[in-house]
């Protein structure tokens, strides 16, 4: 079962959340970030080339212009490969664990998996980020030493940064699955 909802991120851009219910104990949430807009790409390219042309009129060295072209191309490729995330996915399987996947605009994918024994809870936390206070979803990990302690906080959907209404949807679904885990305690 699959459905798609439309939300917005903290800056006002449009996000699309796809929810897939594979089974009562396995769900996936796919958040697609806004694409690289043509307007911002044109603006950055124009500023870099205008600055290079200004330097060229000062120095009369045509290497500056070709260097500016190379810089723009390499910068764009590096941005698409290392910075720009197209889609973020959260897959939660009841007895196995939680997997987070980020797929970049150049096709690269990076995956993180946390096994269920380490997961304490999935919560919505508020914190100061730049000059705002934002809500964000995070996974709390168990502390091996202390039974009720928290050893680490892992935020999810870091580059999509959805708003609270989207987070509440994901939070409720995750809590339904985690409630199964508490209902049937593991024998370890």
């Amino acid at each position, binding site marked *: 079962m699959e459905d798609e909802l439309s939300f917005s991120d903290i800056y006002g851009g449009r996000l699309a959340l796809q929810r897939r219910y594979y089974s009562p104990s396995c769900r996936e949430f796919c958040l697609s970030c806004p694409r690289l807009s043509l307007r911002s790409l044109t603006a950055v390219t124009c500023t870099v080339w205008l600055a290079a042309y200004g330097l060229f009129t000062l120095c009369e060295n045509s290497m500056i212009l070709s260097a500016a072209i190379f810089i723009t191309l390499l910068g764009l490729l590096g941005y698409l490969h290392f910075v720009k995330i197209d889609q973020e996915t959260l897959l939660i399987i009841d007895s196995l664990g939680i997997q987070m996947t980020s797929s970049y605009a150049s096709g690269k994918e990076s995956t993180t998996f946390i096994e269920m024994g380490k997961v304490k809870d999935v*919560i919505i*936390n508020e*914190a*100061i980020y730049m000059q705002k206070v934002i809500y964000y979803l995070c996974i*709390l990990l168990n502390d091996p030493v202390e039974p009720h302690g*928290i050893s*680490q906080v892992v935020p999810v959907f870091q580059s999509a940064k959805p708003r*609270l209404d989207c987070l*509440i949807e994901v939070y409720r679904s995750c809590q339904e699955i985690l409630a199964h885990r508490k209902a049937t305690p593991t024998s370890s």
Partner: protein
Amino acid sequence: MRGRAAPPPPPRRRASDPAGPRTPELRPDEGRGAPAPGWRVQSPLGFSLGFPPLAPLRLPDCLKATGNMVENSPSPLPERAIYGFVLFLSSQFGFILYLVWAFVPESWLNALSLTYWPQKYWAVALPVYLLITIVIGYILLFGVNMMSTSPLNSIHTITDNYAKNQQQKKYQEEAIPALRDIPISEVNQMFFLRAKEPYTKN
């Protein structure tokens, strides 16, 4: 011997009263700088001018109970008036001295046998240094604030040493429950799993 009897103080509450301290209602003639017997003049600063000694200040009961509060109150006192006046005189003197140093030519000062002055260069340089320091201070304060904000994956956004080591206080009947740090999982369940409408209207 005062010409007028002091009004009776309001009845004190026991320290174990669970409803909390009652704010004392000040009667119209109570509080600091209360009017003294007839031959003293009441000044707007709150202390009475006239024949010494100055009248002892009459305090409401809440300030008598904890002596510390008297020393920290911001109201005008005779000592503070004296400090203020000394500061005013010395700052005026310092300013006139600075103007004399900066504007009067060296030869005139030497004729008065005032020879050991710093270079006049500093009369311009020091204010410039001071202003640049203030501007950098604004930027630095902003930067220090941003650097000391915890990142999003820090444990300090969720709990801290006080919350980890807090002890449960015994529950008393009909008393306000003691202040306690509630774990974030419970807070989330209360906010987001039970009531949905207030949060989806944004």
